[in-house]
């Protein structure tokens, strides 16, 4: 919310309607002309075939009588297997965008599909299910349960997915071994280094085979050597076919991605393929 506060301004009806110079013109199917020009495929009935499709996404916060727009009509697609960085200074709206991509929040206006599912219309509990099945979160501050072991932390998404205990153990162990923490399974977060904690978080993010690995400043709390290790791990995961989205304000972290979307003042400033 503090980021959004910087963008506070008086509302106008034009903005509420979602028409500004930077927004693409929306066609009847809710797809923008630009995307159609790029030759994006439609799966059926105007539902995009891309892994992620955002169409004219607005996020407006009401502060008393003031309205402030954290996002002003953002549209983009992410294909399966992409390695995308979303970059922007603080207050640009990138955190709001991350919350929307991660289904922690819903847009005030616009449509958002993951895997052809229209999540922008979903209720709380449906969103929880999408987060559980489609999204693997990696946070700046790791966000592990302090009292639980590494293994239990990694099992957490599987518990909410309704996986049986035996299956859960086995899959969590496999996931921890994949991030080279096979010998740290019974350690609690405070018995692990920062890099190890982030790897536990990555193991947790991957354990449910999500469609997207969504990382929010994943190296923000790590020293430079460990940062490089974690970024190398991301590269490896990408080469194995995972779709990765990293939200960051650091250019050298963004430079590791294959595509960079730059956000400023709630709009996409640039969208470049760099590899």
């Amino acid at each position: 919310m503090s980021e959004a506060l910087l963008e506070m301004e008086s509302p106008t009806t034009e903005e509420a309607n979602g028409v500004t110079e930077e927004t693409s013109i929306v066609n009847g199917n809710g797809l923008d002309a630009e995307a159609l020009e790029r030759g994006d495929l439609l799966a059926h009935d105007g539902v995009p075939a891309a892994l992620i499709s955002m169409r004219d996404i607005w996020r407006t916060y009401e502060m008393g009588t003031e309205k402030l727009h954290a996002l002003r009509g953002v549209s983009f697609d992410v294909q399966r297997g992409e390695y995308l960085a979303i970059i922007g200074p603080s207050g640009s709206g990138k955190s709001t965008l991350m919350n929307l991509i991660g289904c922690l929040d819903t847009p005030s206006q616009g449509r958002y599909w993951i895997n052809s599912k229209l999540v922008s219309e979903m209720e709380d509990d449906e969103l929880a299910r999408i987060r559980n099945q489609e999204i693997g979160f990696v946070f700046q501050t790791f966000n592990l349960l302090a009292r639980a072991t590494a293994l239990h932390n990694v099992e957490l998404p599987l518990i909410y997915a309704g996986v049986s205990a035996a299956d859960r153990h086995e899959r969590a162990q496999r996931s921890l071994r994949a991030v080279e923490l096979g010998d740290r399974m019974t350690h609690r977060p405070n018995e692990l280094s920062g890099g190890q904690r982030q790897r536990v978080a990555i193991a947790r993010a991957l354990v449910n085979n999500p469609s997207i690995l969504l990382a929010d400043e994943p190296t923000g709390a790590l020293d430079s050597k460990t940062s490089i290790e974690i970024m190398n791990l991301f590269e490896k995961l990408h080469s194995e076919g995972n779709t990765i989205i990293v939200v960051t304000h650091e250019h050298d972290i963004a430079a590791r991605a294959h595509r960079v979307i730059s956000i400023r003042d709630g709009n996409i400033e640039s969208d470049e393929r760099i590899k």
Partner: protein
Amino acid sequence: MSFDDIKESAAMAVSTVRANKLRSALTILGVGIGVVTLTFMVSIIQGLNKAFAEQIESLGSNTIFVSKFDPSFGRPPNNEELHRKDITVEDAEAIRTEAAENIDSVAPIRRKIAAGLRYADKETDTPILFGVTPEYEYTLSQYVERGRFVTENDMRGRENVAILAQDVVRALFPNEDPIGKEIKIEGSPFRVVGVMETLGNFFGQSRDNSVFIPLPTFDKYWRDIEPPLVVFFIILRPHTRAHVPPAMDQITDVLRRRRQVPAGAKNNFGVSSQDSLLDFYNQLTGATWLVLTAISFVALMIGGIGVMNIMLVSVTERTKEIGIRKAVGATRANILWQFLIEAVVLTGLGGVAGLAVGELASVLMNAYSPLPAFVPLWAILVGVGISASVGIVFGLWPAWKAARLDPIEALRYE
């Protein structure tokens, strides 16, 4: 909500309880006190009830008791009752004839406290003197052990014969066989012809401190003494337990007619059976029951408020954890159940602790005090059930608060 979810939540709850030992202990104590109060109160009431039922049953099987006083427990008769017309031997005979279809035997009894009972140089204090008929033995299921009981001949001849109960034998004849010896009751000579079997206690009072003489002999000496110094009552034995209610109705009819009670007026006499005594007793204790239960519930409420308080603290403290769980896919129901189960674990532990203490207290009470105490199985189940319910009721609001947290806000919470 699968079994795995419940297991996960219960495991988390136990680990939370462990992580906050003092806090949890205090909360458990609060609920525990509520449950102790409940079980302790129940155990006292149950113990008293059980003891009372046993005492009533020890009176002999299914007898009906008739006197001119209303049934009571140790309450002295009031003025109105004292001035009622006496029940008579003729009343007893009328009942015998008219209620024969329901009644086996009738025992009219006159009773007073004997002021002095002597044999040679020995004296015993205040035994109870009963004037009885031969039917007394069968009617009350109290029999002579040695010698004989009152006979028809004793009745006709108003013989000065006496049958002693065990306490009197011990006091007057510690080393001798009493049979055939002459004793003095308030100065008048009586010949001992029999010794009663041990009769036991009734509400702490020995029934073995008694002397039995023929009813006509009793009337020969103590006819004109007014109640309550001498009381007359009739004990009747119905054929079976099933004959008790019709017998009581018939007795009431006979007595109302003979005593000319106007239609619609209250009985000026008392007819009671073991069952009606039990009913009466339960009525008396019912009010006590209600008060004690109310007290227990207040105690449980206080414990419950403690649980709610601690759960609210717990939810606030673990906002971040709730955010993490929601981020990885926990639904509102998942979070709600987690905190609800945690509250139930807390109160459940309190319940078990409380039951243990309550049980211990009732054991100690039985061992070291005259008050009987008894914890029935249903009270244990109810205790555990109630403490779990307290968890659900008082845990619901905090759990609902947790379930409704916004995941973004929760994740940002430090």
